[in-house]
């Protein structure tokens, strides 16, 4: 059976982050990236509701699972293979608010796909973020392949791949875990279990309560973690990274969390879930929770929190202005990059 968070060491009490090896600055950086991810997301909904962008898909509620795990990795050395909610992961790995808005509005300058892909389909070779498609589950196998390359080169880089609990039903997800296990590949399989795949609740998706239990069947550890507790996520990811770097193979981390928004701007979640359930989870939101912890640990003062808010808001304003006045792709861009330039 999978390990539960409470069985992991929870040392440190008021200063858990220090016990985990995180400086005050590092903890604040995690907090600020979570805040930035949320603020960008909220702005996207605003722009969408004003009719200036056709589609939003949200990270709201899942910032701790994303940033907490990404913070255990080493950007530029390690790789992330995200899915379409992973704003927190992408920001940690170097995407900026401007990049987010350029992608959201499908501008030519969008560093992910120059306006080709829908919002939140990240990708940048320079930043070690693998380009993301929409068909769910496929990316887990790519993570195995990237980790195999690291192993063949004798490097200790780690690859973290992200997916929803619904996507774990794809055959590709199973195949990836099996493959990574056989070759003891340095992969973190990070499931952001938000309880739903669009409208389909977890109990129609699988007969088990903890997806992490599956890891045992492949032959590697599975860990259940409170996905709204950013330090718990960090701790689980940090352990898994150490294991992976030692050549001991993959870990499956199941971060239990909740999607605060509808699936996307095209979805009406009132059709399939109770408002009370959403309200209950709003109480457990990861950002206020971490803020409270940081205040209690005397790392975050009211003044500092205001400074962070101002900085985040300025960044989002700047990004929005910048992206809104940035040019669209030109029609002849349509035909570029079907094949390598040199293969003509």
């Amino acid at each position, binding site marked *: 059976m999978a390990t539960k968070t409470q069985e992991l060491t929870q040392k440190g009490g008021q200063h858990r982050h220090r016990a985990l090896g995180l400086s005050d600055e590092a903890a604040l950086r995690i907090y600020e990236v979570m805040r930035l991810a949320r603020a960008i997301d909220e702005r996207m909904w605003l722009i969408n509701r004003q009719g200036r962008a056709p589609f939003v898909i949200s990270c709201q509620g899942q910032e701790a699972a994303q940033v907490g795990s990404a913070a255990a990795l080493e950007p530029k050395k390690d790789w992330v293979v995200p899915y379409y909610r992973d704003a927190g992961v992408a920001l940690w790995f170097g995407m900026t608010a401007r990049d987010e808005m350029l992608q959201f509005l499908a501008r030519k300058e969008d560093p992910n796909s120059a306006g080709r892909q829908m919002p939140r389909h990240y990708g940048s070779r320079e930043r070690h973020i693998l380009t993301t498609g929409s068909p769910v589950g496929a990316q887990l196998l790519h993570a195995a392949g990237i980790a195999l390359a690291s192993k063949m080169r004798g490097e200790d880089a780690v690859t973290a791949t992200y997916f929803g609990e619904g996507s774990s039903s794809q055959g590709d997800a199973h195949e990836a875990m099996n493959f990574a296990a056989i070759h003891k590949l340095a992969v973190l399989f990070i499931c952001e279990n938000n309880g739903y795949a669009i409208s389909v609740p977890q109990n129609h*998706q699988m007969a088990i309560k903890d997806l992490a239990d599956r890891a045992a069947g492949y032959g590697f550890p599975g860990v259940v973690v409170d996905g709204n507790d950013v330090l718990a996520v960090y701790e689980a990811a940090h352990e898994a990274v150490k294991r992976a770097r030692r050549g001991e193979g993959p870990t499956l981390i199941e971060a239990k969390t909740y999607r605060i928004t509808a699936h996307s701007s095209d979805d009406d979640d009132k059709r399939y879930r109770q408002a009370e359930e959403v309200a209950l989870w709003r109480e457990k939101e990861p950002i206020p929770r971490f803020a409270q912890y940081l205040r209690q640990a005397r790392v975050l003062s009211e003044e500092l929190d205001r400074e962070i808010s101002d900085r985040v808001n300025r960044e989002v304003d700047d990004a929005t202005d910048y992206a809104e006045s940035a040019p*669209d792709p030109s029609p002849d861009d349509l035909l570029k990059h079907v094949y390598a330039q040199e293969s003509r």
Partner: protein
Amino acid sequence: MAERTLVQAVRDALAEEMERDPRVCVLGEDVGLKGGVFKATEGLQARFGPERVMDTPLAESSIVAVAQGLALEGYRPVAEIQFADYSFPAFNQIVNEVARIRYRSNGDFGCPLVIRAPTGGGVRGGLYHSQSVEAFYCHVPGLKVVLPSTPADAKGLLKSAVRDPDPVIFLEPKKLYRAGREEVAEGDGALRRLGEAALVRAGRDVTAITYGYLRVVTLQAAARLQEEGIEVEVVDLRTLRPWDVETCLGSVRRTGRVAVVYEANRTGGFGAEVAAELAERCFESLDAPVTRLAGPDVPAMPFSPALEQAFLPDADRIAAGLRRLARF
């Protein structure tokens, strides 16, 4: 008779067939409580229960292959794939299993299964919610492929697909789901036979053979050319496999000029098959080269509106192509 949109007509067809035949059942992602991401199955679970309208795990190969098991055991499943783009995780099951069951068992087993999927672009769906997948499936003997573009055709053809003894890939142009309404008959009066094209506009000068969303755009182009004195005859194939060669031949023999208009990538698209067959069968009637007006050879339709427009053939481009043929 009631006024229906295309997506309502799909829902009516499913409801009527489920009412008529207790073996008919629906399965797919989000088809139950939510009623499908396009609402094509709205209300069906409340009416027929969670077993006959089942939310599946997020795995297309499972959806198709489990539906196949049901079909082999006497049920009449209608599997929904949320977007045609996501039929590819089930490609092996569709091509190697569903399509070959009858042949490989020497007729011992049949697979009366319908696989519904929204298809095509123009809805800002980006690379993976816009693809036209029909050519992949039209290539496969053992499958039938239907692609209606009006509410009445959608209803009549879906009802026939459900009753068909063989597997049918039923592609619904999502851009037309709510584009317009028309009177749609109820019950058996709504039935349309598979494999019959519709002559949707008569004209002497040039034939345009089309299907799906581009039927609408081709008709716009035809109206524009009418003002220039060019009469375009428009044929909507409706079923792509088997397709109605005779109706197309008849039209081309009258006009001597033909373009096949389709949204998918030009190379190897279904229109290429139509063009080849017509060139072979009515060479002596042709006054101009058989022409394809199609989407570009780019992997899929991008999200940016500028790029989406550049991909999707519009009335200007189709009119220009037909004009060229008429003046040839």
